[in-house]
């Protein structure tokens, strides 16, 4: 309707102003006046009247001094840097128009068969709004770009800007802009920026992304210009856990085995002790599992827990868990997205065999101060987004802590009074958009855990991380980023039993990474990713210092270890045709173990021990001790069988130069890391995968299979001493592993009822064979690894009953993990001992658990300062006592069996969340 009126107005004006020319001269003086004032002044000194909408006119101050100057000159100057055009009628009326120009003649052939004299001074045709709109019944918002300039000969212009989420002000990445019927399109980059060449005139632009409602805007282009959009996100999707942000990603992504968890809203999942836990949610997806509730590591596709690369804003975090893995060490409110690569790992990542957990903190709000807070029974959590420079830079701060410690201290119970269990973590991120092409990001992270299990020992561990990232866009085709980061993990054990065996033990690992990654789009078919990375490890395996004068503990200081891990990488995303896409990648990893160090050389062909030691070689500082390296292939292909059905296949190989030393059956925070050296070789793995993917209306289906082999997997002799052992190579040996599985995922992410069902059948096997009996396990045959759980089933479902109430539940079933169980007892030197079965010959009972949760939203009054909601959940409703481990000790000469379980009773929790 509005358009029609405009057109009528236009025609009317055109009619009235035919062939009118006005060259009135005026004298006027103004200084630092607003344009409106100047207009009023002109109105006062002349008999002209201006017609315009005040909001069109900006507040910029102008100055001028004109003596008998043509009115047109004055007006030209006033509106020189604006999008305002004017038209002077014969009736001494001046119409100001935004963007568009009022034409005083009709274009050629506008009115056919009429004898109108056409002035040919203008080489361009005016832009008719109605024209491009004629088949359109809907209304589209019209955006006019640039100032129409009748003398411009250009026919296409560049429009650029950024697109953000209206509510969170976070950039919307990978949003597609399609110019209807013109075959032009572009995608927003990671910062939400886009740039598109548009033909002059009216363009219907479609905005497409799963996170927004599909939207069409009419953009009338007069000139080069800038347009920023704040779009409404698709709230229907965001109310639930969004596993994939892109509708077609499931079928369209070229590489298989990617899981993306968007953390915008995971509030509907039942909580454990009030904690929203990303990694726990990841573990409900196929291929990702934990050894048990109290295990701090994650096993991805049958890989050991040390084979995962956890990255927060590109910086590594060695232990992403708190309190033995019961909580994850990531503040859920500060996380933007978590992407897990379990199949083909992109070439830019390396150094771990099984997976990459790429965690990105959220884009902070640059407009308004906002935040989120949660109060739970164990921890409290706060996240703030603080704008520093509007639309340019902002700070994201997240903090979380337990209050269990002071509660424990204030208790009357003697045994609890002395126990400790506390943790906290802190994250800060600063983002600065220097300009369209440059941005800077700095992230800092710290987490700390402290606990004592017995009154005489105090354990603590901490993660530290600092990252600096500079992103630069060279041009439309090429962009890159330079990343510098340093990470540290350390733990400490203080043993103070007031005996002469008291000690203080410290362990520390540090790594510094410098990485350059580039992206170059050759053409529509080829997109290159390439770069280099250099990582320096510095590891302090620990020292043990006697505590107190009485201690007979000899101070032990294990010498530091140092190594350099470098890589160059290149990948090409090659779109062969509409159906077939390839991702071809290669990474060459190079590793050098560096001095200063001593390396022991053992007799060939004999088990390594103190007795077969030939000599100890000393290496000077930074002297190369041993190098390893090789190419890592990361390739995959996707083929569309039909539009919503695709198949993918891939092969990837990986190197890992660092190993955890743990003689526990599950990963614990006190496991130490060891660098490969002359005696310990790097781990290597190969994975083949194949999958079928299907999108069906609201459902996404996928079936993936994989076969994986690994070699040089570090294992330990029974009863090995791994902590503070300088002769560590005498306690370990390396074996081969293989794992395979089928993973099924059915997901519904839309609607009031949504969630997913995941099932995987997988096996993870290890073979430790050697000619020496002490380095052989289970007669050198393949046996199940500690985390081999063939059947793994998860069902996560949310049901939104009303706008305020939603109900969710979680069901998990897993085959019990393997254990080594006694198959008899015997007496030796007066003690009763257990004779164990072959390693992992038996299994603990199957694991199953049901959690339920209820979310109650606060009321939705628009004027409310903050939005709040309550979450009530019950973890393990069935009260199933899932054993976590079973172990056997000889106490007072008698064999005693223990079973431990973590959450054996239903655990109810209430948390209160507030968002402002």
């Amino acid at each position, binding site marked *: 309707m509005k358009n029609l009126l405009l057109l009528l107005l236009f025609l009317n004006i055109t009619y009235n102003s035919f062939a009118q020319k006005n060259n009135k001269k005026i004298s006027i003086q103004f200084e630092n006046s607003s344009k409106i004032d100047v207009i009023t002044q002109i109105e006062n000194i002349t008999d002209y009247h201006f017609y315009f909408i005040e909001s069109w006119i900006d507040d910029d101050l102008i100055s001028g001094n004109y003596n008998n100057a043509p009115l047109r000159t004055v007006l030209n100057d006033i509106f020189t840097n604006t999008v305002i055009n004017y038209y002077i009628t014969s009736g001494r009326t001046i119409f100001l128009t935004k963007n568009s120009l009022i034409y005083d003649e009709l274009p050629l052939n506008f009115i056919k068969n009429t004898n109108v004299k056409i002035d040919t001074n203008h080489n361009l045709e005016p832009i008719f709004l109605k024209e491009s709109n004629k088949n359109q019944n809907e209304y589209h918002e019209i955006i006019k770009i640039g100032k129409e300039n009748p003398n411009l000969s250009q026919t296409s212009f560049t429009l650029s800007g950024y697109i953000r989420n209206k509510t969170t002000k976070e950039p919307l990445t990978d949003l597609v802009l399609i110019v209807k019927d013109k075959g032009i399109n572009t995608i927003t980059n990671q910062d939400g920026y886009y740039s598109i060449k548009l033909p002059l005139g009216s363009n219907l632009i479609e905005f497409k992304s799963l996170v927004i409602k599909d939207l069409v805007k009419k953009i009338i282009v007069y000139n080069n210009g800038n347009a920023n959009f704040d779009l409404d996100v698709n709230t229907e999707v965001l109310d639930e856990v969004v596993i994939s942000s892109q509708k077609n990603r499931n079928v369209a992504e070229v590489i298989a085995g990617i899981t993306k968890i968007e953390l915008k809203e995971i509030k509907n999942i039942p909580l454990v002790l009030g904690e929203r836990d990303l990694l726990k949610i990841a573990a409900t997806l196929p291929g990702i599992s934990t050894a048990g509730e109290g295990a701090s590591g994650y096993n991805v596709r049958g890989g050991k827990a040390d084979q995962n690369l956890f990255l927060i804003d590109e910086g590594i975090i060695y232990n992403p868990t708190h309190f033995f893995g019961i909580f994850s060490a990531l503040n859920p409110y500060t996380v933007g997205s978590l992407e897990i690569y379990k199949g083909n790992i992109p070439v830019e990542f390396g150094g771990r065999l099984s997976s990459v957990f790429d965690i990105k903190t959220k884009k902070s709000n640059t407009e308004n101060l906002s935040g989120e807070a949660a109060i739970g029974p164990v921890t409290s959590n706060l996240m703030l987004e603080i704008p520093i420079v509007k639309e340019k830079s902002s700070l994201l701060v997240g903090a979380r802590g337990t209050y269990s410690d002071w509660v424990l201290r204030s208790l009357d119970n003697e045994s609890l009074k002395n126990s400790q269990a506390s943790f906290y973590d802190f994250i800060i991120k600063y983002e600065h958009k220097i300009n369209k092409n440059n941005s800077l990001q700095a992230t800092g992270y710290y987490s700390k855990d402290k606990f004592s299990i017995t009154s005489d020992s105090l354990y603590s561990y901490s993660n530290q991380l600092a990252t600096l990232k500079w992103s630069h866009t060279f041009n439309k085709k090429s962009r890159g980023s330079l990343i510098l980061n340093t990470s540290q993990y350390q733990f400490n054990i203080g043993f103070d039993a*007031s005996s002469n065996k008291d000690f203080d033990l410290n362990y520390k690992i540090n790594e510094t990474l410098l990485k350059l990654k580039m992206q170059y789009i050759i053409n529509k078919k080829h997109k290159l990713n390439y770069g280099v990375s250099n990582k320096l490890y510095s590891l302090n395996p620990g020292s043990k210092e006697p505590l107190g004068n009485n201690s007979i503990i000899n101070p032990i200081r294990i010498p530091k270890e140092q190594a350099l891990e470098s890589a160059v990488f290149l990948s090409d995303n090659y779109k062969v045709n509409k159906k077939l896409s390839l991702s071809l990648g290669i990474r060459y990893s190079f590793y050098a173990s560096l001095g200063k160090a001593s390396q022991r050389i053992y007799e060939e062909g004999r088990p390594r021990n103190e007795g077969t030691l030939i000599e100890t070689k000393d290496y000077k500082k930074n002297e190369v001790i041993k190098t390893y390296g090789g190419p890592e292939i990361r390739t995959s292909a996707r083929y569309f069988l039909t539009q919503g059905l695709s198949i993918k296949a891939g092969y990837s190989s990986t190197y890992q130069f660092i190993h955890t030393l743990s*003689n*526990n059956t599950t990963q614990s925070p006190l496991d130490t890391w060891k660098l490969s050296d002359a005696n310990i070789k790097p781990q290597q793995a190969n994975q083949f995968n194949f999958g079928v993917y299907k999108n069906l209306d609201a459902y996404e289906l996928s079936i993936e299979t994989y076969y994986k082999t690994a070699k040089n997997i570090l294992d330990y002799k029974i009863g090995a001493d791994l902590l503070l052992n300088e002769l560590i190579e005498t306690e370990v040996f390396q074996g081969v592993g293989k794992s395979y599985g089928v993973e099924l995922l059915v997901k519904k992410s839309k609607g009031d009822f949504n969630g997913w069902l995941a099932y995987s059948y997988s096996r993870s096997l290890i073979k430790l064979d050697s000619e020496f009996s002490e380095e052989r396990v289970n007669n050198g045959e393949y046996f199940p690894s500690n985390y081999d759980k063939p059947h793994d089933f998860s069902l996560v479902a949310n049901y939104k009953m009303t706008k305020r109430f939603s109900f969710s539940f979680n069901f998990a079933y897993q085959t019990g993990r393997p254990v080594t*169980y006694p198959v008899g007892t015997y007496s030796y030197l007066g003690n009763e001992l257990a004779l164990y079965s072959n390693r992992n010959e038996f299994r603990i009972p199957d694991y199953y658990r049901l959690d339920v949760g209820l979310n109650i939203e606060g009321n939705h009054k628009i004027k409310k300062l903050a939005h709040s909601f309550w979450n009530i959940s019950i973890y393990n409703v069935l009260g199933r006592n899932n054993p976590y481990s079973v172990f*056997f000790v*000889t106490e007072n000469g008698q064999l005693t069996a223990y079973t431990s379980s973590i959450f054996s009773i239903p655990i109810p929790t209430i948390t209160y969340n507030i968002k402002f």
Partner: protein
Amino acid sequence: MKHTKIYYIVWMLISFLVLSCTEPFNIKSIDFEDTLIIEAIITDEVKYQEIKLSRTFSLEEFIPAEESNAKVTITDNSQNVYEFEETSKGKYTSTIPFGAVANKDYILSIITKNGKSYKSNPTQLPGMVPINNLYATRTVNEDTGNENMSIFINEFDPIANSKYFRYEYEETYKIVAPAWIYECPLSGPGPPPPPEVCAESLEKKTCYNTIASDSIILVNTNTFKDNITSSLEIRKIPRNNPIIRKRYSILVKQYAQSLEAFTFYKILNKFLSSENLLSQNQPGFFSGNIYSVDNKNEKVVGYFDVSSVSFKRIFFNFSDFFPNEPLPPYFIDCAPFTIPDINEYYRRIEAREVAKFGEPLPGELQEVVNIACADCRTLETIAKPEFWID
């Protein structure tokens, strides 16, 4: 109110996490493996050497399962064959006394009654290392203030050809019954008691007992900063342990071992020590140096240990280290008490559950003490050992 609730939840959580997630349970056999267990420690001491053979028993019941009727021999590479014969169930003793000598390979061979054959790898005697200094000293726990008597070894030979040691000890202590009454008065009314009564009464006063260690004490002197000053604590006795109430003696046996034997005992020791709450050491079968001749994959438990042994004994009195200080308590409570029921009194005197203590005051009941306070022989004791020096 809200606070209290949070407290409660956290309390529940923490107590739950820290305390109650580990609980003992009755082990049930899933499967049973019948395996031969061999305890064979041969030393350089010339004596009747002993070897013990047994089998595993099921998890539910403790039924010692000795392995009888096996043929046990030790051969050396000089073709000497030492035969063993079963002297008691599962216990095999060498037919002649012998001691292992240096630079010889010893092989243990066993043929069980079911015809299965087992052999050890050739094993040599490590060099003998004497115990240079064994001493007792009074120690204090800095934090708790608790006092102990600690037995240490130091002055290890820095150039000794053996670096790996296992220790055993045997402690012997003197017991003096605190409520003992000499039942052979030198003077008094009536005829003197017969001399055997006097002799027996004396026997009730002083007793001895010996207890052998059951823990495996291992040391690798390579880990010592300084072989001379580094001391190894062999035994720690709390100040109030009754065994040091009077006079105490400890015999320490030091077995110099090969690295392989040391490693075997080290692993064995790991399985004897307690576990961490939330993480579990990888358990498993560990083999020694004995294998089945017929089936290499058959599990055989045990180590054929050829060690050179050295001994040292020390004595001390409680008063040497704690002069003029109160003695540790006696093994049982010796506070006198009365039994009002006269029948019950006589029954318990008759049954030697209690003994008279002192003379009753007129009109009061006779006080009694637990019999062990008056007659130490009712405790577990042995005759005065030959080595005992007062």
